[in-house]
């Protein structure tokens, strides 16, 4: 079994590392509603790499500091700039997916004025996994849609909605 343990990292062939994020513009409330879907074990691995252990995310024993850590982690790795302005999001809450493997995290951003453009950076979980891919789907004013795939840190995508 020793030899197999050595081969483990090479043979861990199919654990895919993906996240998805929905960003939806609500014209009446002038907000962006954001839902982020992350695998719980991947999020836990990322936070552990930053020195946060024993968080037991999304279980009965979840550490009281866990939500604050997740919020802080998202602020650092998911940046949404409506109309090219820095806006801080509100952390609305989180919800475990029906199969208990993932967590949906809900955020809200106030849009300064009418939404004309949206700049996105998403480096979620990329520090923990080389092959991490993050999908972002945007539904803007007039239901204009855009889909972006982030496969490396430091990438910024900008979606323009017009006047």
């Amino acid at each position, binding site marked *: 079994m020793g030899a*197999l343990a050595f081969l483990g990292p090479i043979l861990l062939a*199919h654990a895919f590392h993906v996240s*998805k994020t*929905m960003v939806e513009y609500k014209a009446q409330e002038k907000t962006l509603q954001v839902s982020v879907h992350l695998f719980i074990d991947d999020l836990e691995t990322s936070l552990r790499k930053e020195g946060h252990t024993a968080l037991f995310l999304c279980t009965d024993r979840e550490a009281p500091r866990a939500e604050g850590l997740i919020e802080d982690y998202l602020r650092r790795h998911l940046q949404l700039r409506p109309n090219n302005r820095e806006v801080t999001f509100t952390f609305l809450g989180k919800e475990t997916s029906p199969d208990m493997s993932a967590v949906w995290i809900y955020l809200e951003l106030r849009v300064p004025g009418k939404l004309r453009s949206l700049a996105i950076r998403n480096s979620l979980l990329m520090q923990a996994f080389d092959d991490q891919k993050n999908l972002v789907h945007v539904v803007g004013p007039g239901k204009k849609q855009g889909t972006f*795939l982030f496969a490396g840190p430091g990438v910024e995508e900008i979606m323009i909605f017009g006047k």
Partner: protein
Amino acid sequence: MSGVFSTYLQLGFEHIADLNGYDHILFLVALCAVYQGHDWKKVAVLVTAFTVGHSLTLALAALDIFEVSSPLVEFLIPVTIFATSLGNTHPSALDSSAAGGFSKAMVFRYVSALFFGLIHGLGFSNFFRQMTLPGQENGLIAQLFAFNVGVEVGQLLIVGLILSLTWLSSLRISARSWNIFISGAAAGISLLLMLERFPT
């Protein structure tokens, strides 16, 4: 990259061509091992059978028509690689490759490629389902189509690469040695994958 089509095409392509998740590549390697560079027409038919299989289950599972537990599928994928490799050592495998056409052994290979394709398609669907978005159900067909096209493009590229290597090998070693060497290697790796993924 902002279009749904290009994004899902990229996802499909990278999913099959991913060196971290090389099980689909390994299956194609095993499938091609009995052929020589000039057999590309037979390989095309065989790969098409595999494609029909995996497109079918990918579509059915992606559209939620049925669901298969993903640990079981992940375990069955190396089983298909092992079975294909083992089949490559059967005496008829080399003979039929030389004779070609629709011999009994060839038909059996087509049918098993189709059947194994069904299993790989379920594997693709487990990934694809993670990449679909709530509230976007009406765009599912377009996403699925683009993803599948990406898988096919990746597959075509991989098979082309394998056949090029096969042709290169034929300059130095016999087709029989190549087949046994490659099939043995694929069987060994798939056995380790099976042990690792054994459903508990």
